[in-house]
């Protein structure tokens, strides 16, 4: 294809360790005082990335408008992250370093991420801990008063900081407190219960958004000098995922339709340890933190179809398959590997629970070794949560777990400055594609969200504002009118269908197609089938959707219908991306590309690139562009955790 663009990631020159500092030195600044106040920045999302970016831009003196769909910024889905946050502090004296965190993240991502971004992330990781501690985040501590650490999958050092099993909550409440302070100071104006429904681009630059006030249905226009999207990932495309039920991809997808390229949509993280699916009434799957694999042992019965209770299966008849297959890392292999290994066992008929789609996560050995109190101190709230859901007590009987869609490494393409292919549109946190390659390591999402929010976005947005010629723009501009009209038209179109199938019904069907064909293992025939099925389902949606209520009122069915319209396009793009990528890497596993031992087999000669898809119109094939990944510091190897 002649029109394919090779995207420029704008990686600064110089040695890896100096790039960020040098780049900041070379970037234009806005002087403190009145000048900053003149610049208006829209931030969409109040999770770790968005909330931290909004608060920090406010601290610096910019005029910030911050939007969230929740009734309070404190409820963004970062709140649900359990296990911890990585930082290369080397407090444990176990040979950790910025370079090791960088290397582990590149390797964990199966060599499909950008070196310069990942190195910056590792550098900034330490400042996140300092900042959060200083803001009063109550991290776990040792008796001497120093910060405690635990281990997470895919690494051999202890670098994960945590606050019991509620690390995301505590870090988010830290962000929320910083945000609250700026709201009080008048630098940040909060817009809770607002959903961004479109992006307004004027003269090629992102200049505003169209948002719906969710309690009245009012459609409103907001203009700014720059727009930051920090709206999270797109796992709910699977319907059942560990995400909150309102988490959605609408902001990034609408930006994509306005010209922002979408990268690596097929890189999805299926988390190995969630409570298994129990019925088709379910609205979500609940994650059980990866930290549990520090002390829990994963096993299945050695014999197929063994229906005995766990306690009746003697030690010799159990297969601790992670310890057997990956002796070096054991139960702490990365997520993609642990998830696929569970699938292999269940597909071989060794799964437990009445569905056969579950494996055991057993704490008996840990309770024997550490005592019940210590185990309770470490995981008490998770055990309680598990018991509430299942009615089983994990102190007495092993947990049952199965993989579940959790995190999406793909997202809007951004350069080193987190700027998308639309000038002035910045994307942070899970919403961008940048740092995790084809698989994210545990405790790295919180790290990336806060690195982007506290440190990267405030600096790159400032450079953009200082270095760009931005004419004043009013919301009366023709572009605002046009985009608002598009939003109104779509809302009316949804309400006018008056068909027979509910949003949930259609979303459930989409989710089953995605899980079966674009889930943990994919192949060409299945992906082709998914593309056809999703296209047909999209048509069904636009002809047969049942929707009640009005657009001038709180109407969650309408909100979900709008989001589903986007998933029905995004799901197809995920399948196309997976079909294009004729290799297995990280969370993307193609049945056609595996080693004799069943491990993912990359094709570095042909696929060491980031895909970046361009939207070309409704029901039209998208155009793929590329960013070649250049490895100057790390040698590409076959990942081994044996």
């Amino acid at each position, binding site marked *: 294809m002649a029109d394919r663009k090779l995207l420029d990631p704008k990686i600064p020159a110089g040695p890896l360790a100096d790039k960020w500092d040098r780049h900041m030195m070379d970037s234009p600044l806005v002087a403190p005082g009145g000048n900053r106040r003149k610049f208006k920045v829209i931030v969409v999302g109040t999770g770790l990335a968005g909330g931290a970016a909004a608060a920090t831009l406010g601290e610096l003196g910019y005029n910030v408008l911050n939007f969230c769909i929740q009734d309070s910024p404190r*409820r963004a889905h970062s709140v649900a992250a359990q296990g911890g946050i990585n930082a290369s502090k080397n407090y444990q004296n176990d040979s950790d370093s910025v370079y090791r965190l960088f290397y582990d993240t590149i390797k964990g991502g199966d060599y499909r991420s950008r070196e310069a971004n990942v190195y910056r992330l590792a550098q900034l990781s330490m400042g996140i801990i300092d900042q959060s501690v200083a803001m009063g985040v109550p991290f776990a501590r040792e008796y001497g008063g120093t910060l405690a650490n635990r281990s997470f999958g895919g690494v051999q050092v202890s670098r994960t900081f945590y606050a019991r099993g509620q690390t995301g909550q505590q870090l988010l409440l830290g962000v929320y*407190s910083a945000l609250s302070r700026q709201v009080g100071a008048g630098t940040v104006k909060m817009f*809770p219960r607002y959903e961004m429904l479109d992006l307004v681009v004027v003269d090629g630059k992102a200049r505003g958004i169209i948002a719906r006030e969710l309690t009245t249905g009012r459609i409103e226009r907001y203009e700014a000098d720059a727009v930051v999207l920090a709206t999270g990932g797109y796992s709910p495309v699977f319907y059942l995922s560990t995400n909150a039920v309102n988490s959605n991809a609408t902001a990034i997808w609408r930006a994509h339709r306005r010209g922002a390229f979408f990268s690596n949509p097929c890189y999805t993280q299926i988390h190995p340890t969630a409570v298994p699916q129990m*019925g088709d009434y379910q609205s979500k799957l*609940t994650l059980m933190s990866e930290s549990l694999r520090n002390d829990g042992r994963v096993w299945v019965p050695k014999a197929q179809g063994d229906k005995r209770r766990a306690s009746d299966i003697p030690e010799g008849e159990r297969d601790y398959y992670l310890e057997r297959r990956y002796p070096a890392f054991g139960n702490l292999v990365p997520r993609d590997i642990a998830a696929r290994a569970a699938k292999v066992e269940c597909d071989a008929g060794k799964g437990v629970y009445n569905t056969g789609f579950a494996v055991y996560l057993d704490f008996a050995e840990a309770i024997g070794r550490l005592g019940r109190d210590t185990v309770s101190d470490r995981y008490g709230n998770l055990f309680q949560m598990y018991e509430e859901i299942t009615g089983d007590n994990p102190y007495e009987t092993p947990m049952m777990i199965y993989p579940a869609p959790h995190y999406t490494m793909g997202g809007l393409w951004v350069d080193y400055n987190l700027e998308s292919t639309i000038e002035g549109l910045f994307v942070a946190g899970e919403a961008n594609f940048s740092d995790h390659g084809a698989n994210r390591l545990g405790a790295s999402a919180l790290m990336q969200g806060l690195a982007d929010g506290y440190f990267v976005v405030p600096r790159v947005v400032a450079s953009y504002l200082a270095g760009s010629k931005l004419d004043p723009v009013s919301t009366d501009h023709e572009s605002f009118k046009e985009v608002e009209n598009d939003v109104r038209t779509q809302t009316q179109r949804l309400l006018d269908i008056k068909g027979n199938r509910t949003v949930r019904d259609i979303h459930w069907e989409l989710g089953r197609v995605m899980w079966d064909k674009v889930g943990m293992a994919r192949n060409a025939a299945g992906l082709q089938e998914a593309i056809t099925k999703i296209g047909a389902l999209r048509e069904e949606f636009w002809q047969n959707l049942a929707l009640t209520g009005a657009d001038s009122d709180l109407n969650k069915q309408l909100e979900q219908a709008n989001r589903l319209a986007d998933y029905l396009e995004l799901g197809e793009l995920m399948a196309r991306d997976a079909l294009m990528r004729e290799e297995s890497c990280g969370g993307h596993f193609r049945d056609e590309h595996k080693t004799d031992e069943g491990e993912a087999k990359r094709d570095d000669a042909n696929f060491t690139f980031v895909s970046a898809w361009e939207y070309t119109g409704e029901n039209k094939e998208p155009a793929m562009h590329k960013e070649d990944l250049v490895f100057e510091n790390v040698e590409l190897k076959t990942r081994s955790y044996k």
Partner: protein
Amino acid sequence: MSDGSNKSGMTIHLKIWRQASGASKGAFFDYTVENVLPEMSFLEMLDILNETLVQKGEEAIEFDNDCREGICGTCGLIISGVAHGTHAGTTTCEVRMRTFKDGDTLTVEPFRAKAFPVIKDLVVDRSAFDRIQAEGGFVSMNVGSAPDGNAVPVPKTDADNAMDAATCIGCGACVAGCPNASASLFVGAKISQFSWLPQGDPERARRALKMVAQMDAEGFGDCSNHGECEAVCPKEISIQNIARMRREFVKAAVKG
């Protein structure tokens, strides 16, 4: 874990509060949901009810919810008179139908308080909490100013006490459960968290005075030690946090 083979399910009768908007009058409406499985969550049962309503062309019942795992604090219903239901230590989204019996009749209402006006059906406006936070629920620490994370040691017990208070999810059950609709447990938890930590020390007096003043300004009632807040709190936040808030407030007020 249930073996999932019990497909018969229960019949649950519901009396649900419906109200078109804050300005209009509300009333209870009767609904019946069949085939409710014990492992379903309470909200999944409401999802099923909503599916049937939409299929009949009726408007779905609005209720706030998001993470559905008890951490975001979005959901909150009064189930048969008790905020988040009678099962202790859980949010509404964590309530499982196995805690009810076949044929039960349950009333479902929004969190009621003057400071939490109804928006629609079971959805209320809890933005008063955000305004209280904005008055002082923070440590004024700009990005860039922080010392090394281990520069200031914090005794483990103090950190644990701070964490106990910090687990508040801001759901508002304490207000809904309190006969006076007081927000003292919510405010006390935040003031306590920072009072246990050296990082919170420089602003402790200002924080206590301003947050308490804003709590009063929002129209929450006074605390008269009923203890209902602690009883309904899904995170089992201790009422000792209210005592601690009072001490912080009095110390600050005496200092002037």
